[in-house]
């Protein structure tokens, strides 16, 4: 069993820089957990604390139920893959992979078996006698993974392992890592600043900011029900649109009032919970795919139509990004390739307010939990 439990974990760098605070996380055995957040949010610090490379200032770290705060890295039954791979430059691939086993005095035959098996899985058998400098980025990445695999650890810690690879290789390595996780049936803790990696790989995602956990949830829930504007903005590409306005109510029901526009929430979305915010400024969050410019949608969401100016239209192949401007507000819409909107056009766009999010403009927390609709 290699469940990981972090209770009230705190990390303070002298003299008084708090990198992580109040970090609570329970990772079940064999899960693929992703820590995601912008640079400097403390995600790597958490990973390094789990690894034992960073001292824990306060709180409890348990791996497999055992308190690990003071246990040296080598006794934690973990393996780590580093962002720049951290291969030993003077050793061959074989030596790189076998180093930890040699230190543990594993019999030679067993070392050979394990290294060769890992090399076979990672398809690097041909490279075993090369040195790291004679390898490409992708191959080094595999060696780094192999070095972790031969240890047969209870926990894999991966610190932005794909960030040094080119886009194409990164995409294929993502799939391979998912397959590897299934094959090894081990706990993976993966750190990244890339929300795409987090969304595609993580079974559970921990979104962090400034040393604090913002939300722990499945990818789908993070996307559909972000707990605050930061998570909403961080997860999803292109980013969610935010519009500051006032939540008002008239005879047609609750709506968002902007300088010149009024956009109404659909009946099923309206609820008593909105009463509390009525007449108050709120932040509206709309995902780019919930903004439409086709006729059918303009009819369908007729209560939530605004005029806008297309500043730039970007054809992505299967879809088109429209960068819109309205009264000083910038919006991004993700529409189908059949759109007739072109750069410079004045267009009407409809917003699916049934899927819109509301946030408190002060503390940025999500307003309502959308209970009326989803649960």
């Amino acid at each position, binding site marked *: 069993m290699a469940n990981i439990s972090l209770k009230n974990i705190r990390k303070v760098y002298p003299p008084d820089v708090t990198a992580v605070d109040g970090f609570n996380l329970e990772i079940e055995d064999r899960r693929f957990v992703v820590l995601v957040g912008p640079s400097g949010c403390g995600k790597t610090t958490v990973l390094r604390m789990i690894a*034992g*490379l960073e001292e824990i200032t306060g709180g409890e770290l348990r791996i497999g139920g055992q308190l690990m705060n003071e246990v040296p890295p*080598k006794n934690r039954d973990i393996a780590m893959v580093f962002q720049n791979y951290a291969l030993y430059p003077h050793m061959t691939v074989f030596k790189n992979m076998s180093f930890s086993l040699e230190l543990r005095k594993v019999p030679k035959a067993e070392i050979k078996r394990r290294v060769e098996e890992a090399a076979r899985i990672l398809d690097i058998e041909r490279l075993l006698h090369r040195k790291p400098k004679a390898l490409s980025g992708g191959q080094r990445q595999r060696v780094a993974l192999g070095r972790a695999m031969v240890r047969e650890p209870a926990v894999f810690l991966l610190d932005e392992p794909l960030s040094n690879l080119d886009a194409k290789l990164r995409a294929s390595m993502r799939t391979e890592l998912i397959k590897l996780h299934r094959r090894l049936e081990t706990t993976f803790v993966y750190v990244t600043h890339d929300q795409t990696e987090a969304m595609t790989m993580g079974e559970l995602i921990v979104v962090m900011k400034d040393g604090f956990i913002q939300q722990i949830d499945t990818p789908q829930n993070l996307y559909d029900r972000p707990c605050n504007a930061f998570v909403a903005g961080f997860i999803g590409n292109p980013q969610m649109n935010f519009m500051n306005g006032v939540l008002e109510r008239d005879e047609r029901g609750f709506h968002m009032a902007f300088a010149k526009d009024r956009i109404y929430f659909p009946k099923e979305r309206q609820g008593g919970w909105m009463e509390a915010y009525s007449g108050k400024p709120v932040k509206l969050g709309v995902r780019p795919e919930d903004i439409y410019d086709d006729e059918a949608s303009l009819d369908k969401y007729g209560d939530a139509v605004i005029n806008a100016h297309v500043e730039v239209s970007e054809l992505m192949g299967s879809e088109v990004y429209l960068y819109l401007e309205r009264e000083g507000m910038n919006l991004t819409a993700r529409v189908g390739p059949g759109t007739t909107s072109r750069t410079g056009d004045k267009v009407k766009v409809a917003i699916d307010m049934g899927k819109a999010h509301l946030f408190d403009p002060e503390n940025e927390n999500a307003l309502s939990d959308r209970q009326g609709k989803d649960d």
Partner: protein
Amino acid sequence: MKEKSARNIIITPATNSRKPRRGNKPGKRNRYAIFFLAPYIAGVLVFWILPILFTFAISFTKWDGFNAMQFIGIENYKHLFLEDGRFFKSLFNTVVIMGLSIPVTLVLALIFAYILSGKALYAKRFLQLGVFLPYIMTPVAVGIIFALLFDQHYGFVNRILMYLHIIQSPLPWLGNEWLARITLAIALIWMYCGYQMILLMSGMSMISEDVYDAARIDGANTRQVFFRITLPLLKGVLVFVVITSLIGGFQLFDEPLLLFNSSLSGKFPIGGPDNAALTMSLFFYNESYTNFNFGYGAAISYMMFVVIALISFVSMKIMDRGDRL
């Protein structure tokens, strides 16, 4: 010119694009190159090539620098190898002094570099400076300081050793063959340790922190990290330090000269007691500029050249092999 060659490339895309350029006013480019290189080439010719050839020529003569040269064939070389024991003695001295000083300097430099590379070390900069300072001292000062320190009757070293009851009577540091070599080696260690430390420290700072982290996770303890990660990764710097020390060792000159012949210790012959500190350079200098045997001196310097070339060749071979490992 650029446009022209570009056009040529377009016209003859299937042929070697560099070909037309070669036929394009041949020699003009070379003439410019020679013009700009001329000052350097002149310098090399006058101060390098000519003296090298001239030295080779006078090594077959007997010449005091004033009177006419007298061609004597290979007499100088014959004398050097067969009659004058000082050549092999100076070679032996040089090797012994290097053997005493280089390994100790390197090990000490490695220890200092390792300790002073540590992160949380109090007065780190001050200690670094302290170890490095002797290197920027002029050998004249080093010669005088060591002559004073190791003086048999008034020297500080003998007093300390006697005070600590390590020795009963004062040791003739500068007056005994082996003690003189050891004293010289100590001076060299003291002088060059800081320099080597700086080189090794810069080498250590090039090793990524992540590699150390990886080693810790792999289960290596401090000793294993040092011997299996740090040391092998410093190989390039170590090879550089060793080769430059070897070459520097064969050129060892001012330290022994000043240690045994400064105004304070002028009572010794030029190579120290019983020529114990007569290095090859010192031997050459003594013959050429003290005894004015320029022909013989030239022969010595040619033999020095052969020895240094041999050492450099061997070290380069070792380095080459190390690279392939």
